[in-house]
């Protein structure tokens, strides 16, 4: 037996709020190990995006601890966090609308030391998404929704992350495009990158991930092997519409 993979990301009792009244996370603990794909599912308003904001440094937690590869992220601004190898593909894609596709991808490599293997990664991303190469000088805002999602994903890969967090990458996309996105995620996973995936499409997410957490109004209410959750009657009823 080999030793279990080391923890990549650990959350311990994390609470977060917007203002005084809206408590969006109430003592959430979860972890993602090296090379592992973890899904986080939950209904609208459960706090999934909030959790990703806390991890990426956009929102300071009220309590609890976030550690990435053993390092406490407390007080780190988002631009520092991404430099550690943790990259978020935000909800709604958020490509830079007036920057060209190529410039969007270059922005993805912003946090890396200059002259790093960015050129090689650019080739890799363009090979993964040939459409981005054909649209390289077009403004990001003129791409279709699916193309924008590919751009957002490609941009995040340009940061050469060790942990990739994705907030609803399939939202509003045609089924074919969703398939393509998940095929790419599969490739990324096989490349050794850890993934934390938030999805509305719970079935898809549970089939993709090895482990999963279920978030309800700011609290983890279930967790375990993704397969087991797929068969869990409560989860099936609440999230898979069965």
């Amino acid at each position, binding site marked *: 037996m080999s030793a279990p993979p080391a923890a990549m990301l650990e959350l311990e009792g994390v609470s977060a709020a917007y203002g005084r009244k809206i408590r969006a996370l109430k003592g959430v603990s979860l972890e993602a190990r090296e090379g592992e794909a973890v899904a986080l599912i939950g209904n609208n308003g459960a706090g999934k995006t909030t959790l990703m904001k806390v991890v990426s440094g956009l929102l300071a937690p009220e309590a609890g601890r976030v550690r990435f590869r053993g390092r406490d992220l407390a007080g780190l*601004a988002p631009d520092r966090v991404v430099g550690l190898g943790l990259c*978020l593909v935000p909800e709604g894609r*958020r490509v830079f609308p007036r920057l060209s596709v190529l410039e969007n991808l270059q922005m993805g490599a912003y946090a890396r030391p200059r002259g790093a293997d960015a050129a090689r990664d650019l080739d890799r991303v363009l090979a993964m998404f040939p459409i981005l190469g054909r649209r390289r000088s077009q403004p990001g805002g003129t791409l279709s929704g699916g193309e924008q999602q590919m751009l957002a994903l490609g941009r995040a890969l340009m940061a050469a992350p060790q942990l990739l967090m994705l907030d609803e990458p399939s939202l509003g996309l045609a089924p074919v495009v969703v398939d393509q996105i998940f095929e790419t995620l599969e490739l990324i996973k096989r490349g050794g990158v850890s993934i934390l995936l938030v999805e509305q499409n719970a079935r898809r997410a549970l089939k993709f991930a090895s482990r999963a957490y279920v978030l309800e109004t700011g609290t983890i209410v279930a967790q375990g092997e993704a397969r087991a959750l797929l068969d869990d009657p409560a989860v099936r009823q609440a999230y898979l519409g069965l």
Partner: protein
Amino acid sequence: MLVQQLLNALTLGAIYALIALGYTLVYGILAMINFAHSEVLMLGAFAAWALAGWAPAALGSGLWGAAGLLAAGMLGAGLVNVLIERLAYRRLRRAPRLAPLISAIGVSIVLQNAVFLWVSTQSLAFPQPAGTSAVSFLGASINGLQLAILGAALGLMILLHLFIARTRMGRAMRACADDLEAAKLMGVNADFVIAVTFFVGGALGGAAGVLYGMNYGSIKYNMGFLPGIKAFTAAVLGGIGSVRGAVLGGFLLGFLEVLAAGYIPNGAQWRDVVAFAALILVLLARPSGLLGERAAQKV
């Protein structure tokens, strides 16, 4: 006569454009109007004036001396603008929009009065570079000083374009203007990029202040007000937030004013009326300005 009028319009327009760029750069990234910008340009002129008084011999009186004054004005105004952002705006970035606006007006009044009280209440002579009095061009004798001012302003605009379009920092500035939060997620230190934006915008304003001072040969504590408000108008005319719009708006306003002054009877008194009437007409037809993008395009 016509050539001279054309040069008047271009010179005035170039100065407006430089100032307008300062408004538009800041607006592009923070969606706020830096109403202290007129005082930034005034302080740029005063910084250059102070240098000229302190080291007249070192500067000399030719074009090189003028370039030194320009550099001093740009550096001074850029630093002042960075300081203003740090002290008066940064903490208000998430506040309701009126708060930074009022803060900016406050800064403007404080700076103007500080110069009024501590430097001078009167007009001060500003050095004009020697050897640029009259040049013959297309058979007409035209003002060489204006030609130099126009050249300097155009040079700065080209440099700004190259900076924004070609450099890593320029790209980060555009990314922040598009989506500040997404830029942070890519590793951009937004506070630093905003400071750089204020420096660049302030430096362009300072350059305009120095060129304005050279053009008229004098500066005064309230010299920023009128060109400031007109350049703001120019920025809105071109489409606030748009760099090309600021340049277009600046030159357009310069031409409108000079045409009104030259070709309408009693035109000198009508120039501002014509200019602002044109602004109203353009905004009625195109509320987001000539080259402005619809607000909805910003995510």
